[in-house]
């Protein structure tokens, strides 16, 4: 099971998750890409100590990992669960991370920046996410001096993050807008108001399973609260569009929609070999069926879990060994059948 998906009793339809991340650097150290292994270790120790040594409550909540001490498969599983970024594992010798036991908070050390604080929550929780992120930020700051400029704000390795260093994003499930072809118009509008859209696994990835990540594009010139407020307003509008679109679909083509949803469920419950791409597409149909009240005996959280656990590394973790593509597809079908029994 994916721990961070747990909890939160608010309705989670359409919005899968909220993510807030802050980029921070420590004064007097070169940025991770060009720093020496020795300085990288010093940064790791200082950040770890600020959480583990500096605060007794937090020390019990967090576990510490050195990337190089985790197997490549386990690293990939963490990435698929969205707990760490692909960037963090691209330099295992220099990087590390702290993970809260409920997996909702990660402090990545020596990714592109010295510190990346990430809060990941199920459902739409932008204010809560920012609040939590900012608190962790304050605690780390008690132990280190951040690179900060009076005019430019927090200084980051990439000029696209300077200022607040904050990226706030919301993962949305938009099958009806995709089905009706309205999605392109919506996404175009989103980019025009200074937000950006990406696929499930970040920059340059496909919108697998009709999942879209909407996030702020810029980090300078607006307060964190303003950025979040704007993102929230847009997200709420997109949710309304998706809901309207579903309603229209039901009015016009109820039987066809129900047919598609039940066929997809049928395949998932019975297939013997299935690719990740196909399973994501079918899981998206079933998710929509649950959200629309067509399917009532499957928990939404189960589908959210399957969307992550059916990814390649997680499948191999589930079966306990490395698998080739064909073996993975067989194992994936088996796991999905087991889950949906």
């Amino acid at each position, binding site marked *: 099971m994916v721990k961070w998906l747990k909890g939160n009793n608010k309705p989670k339809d359409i919005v899968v998750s909220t993510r807030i991340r802050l980029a921070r*650097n420590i*004064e007097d*150290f*070169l*940025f991770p*890409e*060009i720093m020496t292994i020795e300085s990288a270790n010093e940064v790791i120790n200082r950040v770890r100590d600020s959480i583990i040594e500096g605060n007794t409550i937090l020390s019990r909540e967090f576990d510490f990992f050195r990337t190089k001490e985790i197997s*490549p498969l386990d690293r990939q599983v963490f990435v698929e669960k969205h707990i760490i970024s692909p960037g963090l594992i691209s330099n295992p010798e220099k990087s590390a991370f702290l993970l809260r036991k409920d997996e909702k908070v990660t402090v990545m050390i020596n990714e*592109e920046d010295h510190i990346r604080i990430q809060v990941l929550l199920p459902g739409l929780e932008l204010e809560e996410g920012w609040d939590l992120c*900012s608190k962790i*930020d*304050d605690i780390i*700051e*008690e132990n280190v*001096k*951040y*690179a*900060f*400029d*009076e*005019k*430019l*704000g*927090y*200084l*980051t*390795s*990439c*000029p*696209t993050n*300077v*200022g*607040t260093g*904050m990226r706030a994003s919301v993962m949305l499930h938009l099958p009806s807008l995709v089905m009706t072809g309205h999605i392109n118009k919506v996404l175009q509008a989103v980019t025009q108001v*200074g937000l950006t859209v990406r696929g499930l696994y970040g*920059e340059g990835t*496909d919108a697998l399973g009709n999942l879209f990540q909407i996030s702020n594009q*810029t*980090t*300078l*010139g*607006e*307060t*964190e609260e303003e950025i979040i407020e704007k993102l929230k307003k847009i997200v709420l509008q997109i949710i309304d569009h998706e809901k309207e679109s579903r309603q229209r679909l039901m009015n016009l083509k109820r039987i066809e929609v129900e047919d598609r949803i039940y066929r997809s469920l049928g395949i998932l419950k019975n297939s013997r070999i299935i*690719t990740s*791409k196909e399973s994501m597409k079918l899981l998206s149909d079933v998710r929509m069926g649950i959200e629309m009240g067509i399917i009532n005996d499957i928990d939404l959280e189960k589908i959210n879990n399957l969307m992550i656990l059916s990814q390649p590394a997680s499948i191999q973790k589930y079966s306990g*060994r*490395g*698998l*080739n*593509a*064909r073996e993975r597809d067989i194992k994936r079908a088996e796991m999905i059948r087991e889950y949906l029994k």
Partner: protein
Amino acid sequence: MLCDDCGKREATMHFTKIINGDVTELHLCEECAKNHKEFDFDASFSIHNFLAGLLDLDSTQGSPFEMDYITSVKCEKCGLTYSRFRQIGKFGCSNCYNSFREKLIPLFRRIHGHENHVGKVPRRAGGMIRIKKEISRLKKQLELAVRNEEYEKAAKIRDQIKELQAQIDTE
């Protein structure tokens, strides 16, 4: 052999990954390979390539002074040259912001539409700025209180501002 992903087209791209003796094979058609990160040979092209294009848009191309700046200016702390920064679009250290400052303001305006930070200020590194920002926030509240004729509240806010101002003066 058919493509592992779509199962329709002939596989023309073959990928073998060996990690600790575990062999993973992947056979894809050209179409599906485009969407696969294992085949993403062009990963070097990223946002940073665009950034380089955004720098020096306003300068007169090829002027001797300009070339001089590009090749000679470098960050004294990490050694990153401005010309290298133009290529990779990433800084080497936080001091690069000072070293290339005059060139960066137009860049930030192009990326973010702004050039000044108005968000969170850290407690330690923030110091004076934090207090100054707090004062300007309180001044706005004061104005509002006066406009709404909440004079008692206004007096309280005025005292807070005085207190903060005194902190700045003593430092």
